[in-house]
């Protein structure tokens, strides 16, 4: 029999994650060398310099516009763009992340409200149940990159610019997981629980608030975890066709115009850090809510 031991932060969390990170970094360095080496060899041949393999490795890690930037190049770019400049600067990734985050959050809020409303409609109005879901699914099969410019252009025509159009693209992507998850959640009560409410002659309204809503809470948090990540993607995609001057998306776009691969990677990583923080935040909110609702601790 294995003796149960207290889970330790070092051995159960940090160590396994650290191993994976280390493997990723090693793989990344290897990729950097193999992807950058052909160009470097060409360059060296044209300039007539001959280098040893170890010198070549060094060169592939120091290119100005590498095909694949090395981890330390991205890290130093990130460092400079976050701690090296004031957060109000146009060169600060914190500033750009904040611009994207604000439209992400607004769009996420819209999307969550919209998704919940659709789910309530679908679970309570039979006509909506039969007619609505196929349209919702169709809406998600349309490529966002094709729809985003149209949304921006149409809204600009009615003088809506700035934060709202970008947020609406986030809404478009984030309402879907919430709607689907909440339909499932609101329908999750067992037949016995529904019979129980029926035996009390509870109204639809009472059954909704006292049974369906609390039963749907775990589904809600699972859905918004997906939705918040989708919102961020939506906000970034929304920044691309607008020629936005600020935001993670605009940094990606500017980076690709000028082949600043290091900047692109730095912006990508900034984006994923924001995504991780958002998902973690939702996760914590879900756990706290479950605890408050008396769920069995796991």
């Amino acid at each position: 029999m294995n003796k149960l031991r207290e889970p330790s932060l070092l051995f159960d969390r940090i160590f396994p994650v650290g191993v994976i990170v280390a493997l990723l970094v090693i793989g990344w360095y290897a990729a950097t060398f193999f992807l950058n080496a052909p160009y470097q060899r060409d360059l060296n041949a044209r300039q007539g310099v001959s280098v040893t393999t170890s010198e070549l490795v060094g060169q592939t890690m120091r290119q100005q516009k590498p095909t694949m930037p090395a981890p330390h190049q991205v890290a130093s770019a990130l460092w400079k763009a976050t701690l090296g400049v004031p957060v109000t600067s146009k060169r600060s990734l914190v500033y750009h992340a904040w611009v994207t985050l604000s439209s992400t959050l607004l769009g996420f809020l819209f999307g969550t409200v919209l998704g919940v409303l659709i789910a309530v409609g679908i679970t309570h109005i039979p006509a909506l149940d039969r007619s609505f879901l196929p349209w919702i699914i169709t809406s998600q099969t349309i490529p966002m990159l094709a729809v985003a410019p149209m949304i921006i252009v149409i809204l600009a025509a009615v003088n809506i610019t700035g934060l709202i159009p970008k947020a609406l693209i986030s809404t478009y992507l984030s309402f879907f997981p919430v709607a689907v998850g909440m339909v499932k959640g609101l329908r999750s009560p067992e037949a016995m629980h529904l019979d129980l409410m029926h035996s009390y002659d509870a109204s639809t309204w009472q059954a909704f608030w006292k049974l369906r809503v609390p039963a749907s809470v775990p589904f809600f948090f699972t859905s918004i975890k997906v939705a918040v990540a989708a919102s961020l993607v939506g906000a970034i995609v929304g920044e691309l066709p607008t020629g936005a001057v600020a935001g993670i998306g605009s940094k990606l776009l500017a980076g690709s115009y000028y082949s600043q691969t290091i900047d692109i990677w730095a912006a990508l990583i900034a984006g994923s850090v924001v995504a991780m923080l958002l998902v973690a935040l939702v996760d914590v909110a879900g756990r706290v809510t479950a605890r408050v609702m008396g769920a069995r601790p796991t």
Partner: protein
Amino acid sequence: MTDKPVISARDLSLVFETHDGPVQALSNINLDIQAGEFVSLIGPSGCGKTTLLRVIADLEQPTGGAITVNGMSPHEAREKRAYGYVFQQAALFPWRTIESNVGLPLEVMGLDRNEAARRVKHNIALVNLAGFEKKHPWQLSGGMQQRASIARALAVEPAMLLMDEPFGALDEIVRDHLNEQLLKLWAQTKKTVVFVTHSIPEAVFLSTRIVVMSPRPGRIHEIIDCNLGAERPLEIRETLEFQRIAQQVRDGLRAGHSYDD
């Protein structure tokens, strides 16, 4: 008033339409239950005992015949909260504490807060769960959960308890214990109880009358009187009278069951 039956079924039938064609769940049910009786419905699976209970509770609609509960239709009786229903599982809401679960029907009824709190306290004490008010269902054993669900049914203060194999999922020791408690409760509260079970000893131990049902189609095979008196310690199960009634129920079940397999 007292001689009028609380539940009265006349030629009651219920046909379920299924994908494999109609299924006769209840056929030709004639049954009168008087106030204060403890009536068990016993029979093999598919005999319609749970369906009959659900018809009384207005959770299923009969397709033929007539049934009255307190002289009204089951629908009106349900609207007047004439009964408390206890399910096979405790069916407590996991996000509510025990006291808040017991208070659920009172919230739905819109009962005054003080009165609701009094009833919750009283009924939790009645099922011996005092001290567990603030616990959540997962913190209680299966037997305790089922007691909480009985307290919840009693909180409505119905004249009638409808119980659908309430102890079926529990082990025999807990079951014996809860049977004793249920009898005490019944003696204290003078409620009419309709109790679905597939256990012969349980039915004989608890009931004043036992309705033996048989399947395909679901019907009443025999109604057996079971007058063991009000005082029923567990040891009564060793007496000849108990054995005789149990044997009668067993014979009834055997005769009614078409062993077609």
